[in-house]
């Protein structure tokens, strides 16, 4: 893989990958004119490929002020520049956007959902289709979550036991058990590049012994997931740190889970309804104890200010349904907040959503046109979805660039100024969180 100039939506950002053993093997062979088929059949190459771990993290730059890092995350399908925002394509589709459009936006990794896909169309069919990559024809990376969160948030009569999560299928009423083994089995069939362990998910607003029970059980389920993974050479299993909002429980979980040899860690059990003051403290505690040479994935975080702050706290990967979901309601994300295109005030506004945005929507269409189109056709939603994904990816790209160039704290200050009308409107949790990593806002 060489230097590639990022496509529209990520101006001035470049993906740079240094010294990758895997790709340099392949590149060298291709350059010397070896036929691709011969290459694959070559035994020594096969061995070399098998020995390469399916995940490599290379730290390209570290912010000297905060805990932020810029890394290259090498995964089986392509390299991913971090910090990265991963759009969520729940049912094997990015809500009205084709894979070509998603690729064109510069997306290197997106999410699929084990619960939904496990129900429809089911793992057997997806396996027949050459995995989720083959089924949806996505050539880059996929991350699947375990289904645990949906169990608790979507399904009414779910019962958690040591075995797994028991629930009634909403489609045919049959009783199903989602165990660590079953979740990994489905994810093996899906063939995602990153799989998440099945964790015992407890809402962040719950307190008491249930939180501790869930934390310990998640560790046991992690071990069962590791054992159950049929494809450790191709699929990366991430652990998920639990422990609710209790520092001691979190630390205990971190202490145990980091003993396991997993390629990456997620920080889970947050981004629910908890207070932001508690939220950031758990995030920074987690990154304090997570090994720096492995990626940190903060699950369910997607609002711009949360992303920037949590990058400063040491997180590398993020996902959230918010940008794509809110698009369908006509809400366009912009550096100064959001813009509800369906509102009357935009009916005659001939500017694009963001005059500085380079996405296909902003280059061609005005707020007024999109406002009108929302009354007639679904294409309006797609225009906003494209824009919102571009916004998120461009934001992350700019964050990364500023870390690489050693000016991340400055970036944070400019970002906050743009987003909030005045300093007294800065959310206090964000001010505190940034202060904890040596960034003072005005």
């Amino acid at each position, binding site marked *: 893989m060489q230097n590639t100039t990022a496509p529209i939506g990520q101006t001035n950002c470049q993906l740079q990958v240094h010294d990758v053993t895997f790709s340099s093997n392949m590149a060298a062979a291709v350059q010397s004119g070896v036929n691709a088929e011969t290459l694959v059949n070559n035994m020594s190459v096969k061995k070399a490929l098998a020995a390469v771990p399916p995940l490599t993290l290379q730290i390209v730059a570290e912010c000297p002020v905060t805990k932020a890092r810029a890394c290259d995350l090498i995964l089986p399908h392509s390299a991913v520049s971090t910090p990265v925002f991963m759009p969520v394509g729940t049912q094997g589709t990015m809500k009205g956007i084709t894979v070509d459009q998603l690729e064109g936006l510069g997306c290197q990794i997106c999410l699929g959902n084990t619960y939904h896909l496990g129900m429809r169309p089911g793992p057997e069919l997806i396996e027949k289709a050459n995995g989720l990559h083959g089924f949806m024809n996505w050539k880059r990376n996929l991350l699947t979550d375990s289904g645990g969160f949906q169990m608790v948030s979507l399904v009414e009569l779910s019962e958690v036991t040591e075995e797994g999560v028991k629930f009634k299928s909403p489609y045919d009423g049959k009783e199903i058990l989602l165990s660590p083994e079953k979740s990994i089995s489905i994810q093996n069939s899906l063939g995602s590049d990153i799989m998440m362990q099945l964790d015992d998910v407890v809402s962040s607003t719950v307190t008491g012994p249930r939180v501790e029970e869930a934390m310990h059980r998640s560790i046991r389920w992690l071990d069962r997931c590791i054992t159950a993974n049929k494809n450790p050479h191709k699929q990366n299993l991430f652990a998920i740190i639990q422990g609710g909002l209790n520092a001691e429980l979190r630390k205990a979980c971190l202490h145990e889970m980091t003993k396991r040899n997993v390629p990456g860690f997620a920080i889970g059990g947050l981004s629910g309804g908890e207070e932001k003051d508690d939220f950031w403290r758990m995030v920074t505690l987690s990154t304090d104890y997570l090994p720096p040479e492995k990626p940190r994935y903060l699950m369910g975080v997607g609002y711009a200010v949360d992303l920037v702050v949590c990058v400063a706290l040491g997180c590398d990967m993020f996902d959230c349904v918010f940008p794509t979901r809110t698009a369908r309601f006509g809400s366009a994300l912009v550096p100064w907040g959001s813009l509800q295109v369906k509102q009357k005030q935009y009916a*005659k506004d001939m500017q694009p959503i963001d005059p500085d945005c380079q996405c296909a929507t902003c280059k061609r269409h005005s707020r007024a046109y999109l406002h009108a189109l929302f009354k007639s056709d679904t294409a309006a939603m797609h225009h906003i979805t494209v824009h919102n994904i571009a916004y998120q990816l461009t934001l992350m790209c700019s964050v990364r660039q500023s870390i690489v160039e050693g000016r991340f704290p400055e970036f944070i200050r400019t970002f906050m100024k743009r987003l909030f009308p005045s300093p007294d409107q800065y959310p206090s949790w964000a001010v505190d969180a940034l202060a904890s990593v040596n960034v003072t806002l005005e």
Partner: protein
Amino acid sequence: MKLELSRVVQGGSRLGVLKGLGRTGQHSLDVPGCLLYTRCGSAPHLTQDTLHTLSTLPSVTQVTLSTIAEHQEVLEECKDGFKKFAGLHETVLYCSLHDPAAPCPTGHTTNKTVSVWGSGGRIELSVAKFMALQRAVRPDWYQSMADGETWQENTSRKRVRKSVDRTLAHLDECLLVHHNTQELEGVEVFGVVEGGDILEERVRSARETAKRPVSGFCLDGLQTGSMNQSLRTQLITAVTQELPEDKPRLLQGVGRPDEVLACVEAGVDLFESFFPFQVTERGCALCFSLDVSPDPELAAVLRDDEERDTAGETQENGDLNHSDQTQMTSFEIDLNEKRYHDDFRPLVEGCGCYCCRNHQRAYLHHLLVTNELLAGVLLMIHNAAHYHAFFAALREALADGKLDLLKRRLLGERRAETGTKD
């Protein structure tokens, strides 16, 4: 605009090119052909990126007052017309009255007004308002205001006569305003031929409309579901005999491939492309063969494949169905059906569209079952591609004198299921 015909079959089909389209006159449209159907300037479900995966796009974009009348104020403030407003570059804009895919309630037409239905309800149009809209929209060409409310069963003769009279009166008024409106200089107007299902009225409407200085003719009140094809053919044949040969004829509201073909034979040049959109909305994909190869083996193979596909599906002869334009035809497969859940073939083997190059029936089925927006996007791409390919095949068949073969192919597919002879 100038219609250059290269081939005319006596009293029937024409092949040629409609040239000199657009303000600068540099666009052209092959005839018989279709316009690009849009809602508020957008091909349904498609953004510019997805629309342009289609290798051949009609050079004329159709927009309807149904979808833009409610935006009159914005357009007037915008000052540069609808094309600029919608980000439509490099296309010819044709503005029609009604959305062919959205049948509207009847009973609101008066001597001086017609109504369209926007997202906020009914909008009443007098000629003055109609022309004010045209001034705001700034199309390259438009149809004049017309009363076409004759398609219901049992429309009285008196009502049909009124529609002809009113439409002529509207045309005269429109032309008057048109010639006094600076913004509409160089814009072309089509007259609208009405007459319901009454031959004499059709002829009268055609004769009278032909006397006016219009660039072409819309044939209205003949839409799918309003009458069977043989009556439609009869009426169109009578009408085109009264119309000048060198001006194009646009048929509104007819899109089914077999009906299109029959109407081409009767002398129609242009059609609206709303049919692929209707197919998309029911989760179906157009799959009828365009092959007119005389090779019996190849033809048999293709036929077997399609019969396997269409076997077991409910078919009704759409001609006689007055009420439901949403009913599936024999030209499509229904991707909602369970049997496609593990069918890993493309929608149509050999189709070069983005959907067929990248995705499989099983995936489309999944998207439909899970109610995903991408289903509409992908099906719209495929159905539009297939439909445009149909028109290309139609023109080729005309050029090579193989229209009969194509007709037999199309009707053969319908006959295989209905078991009726035409």
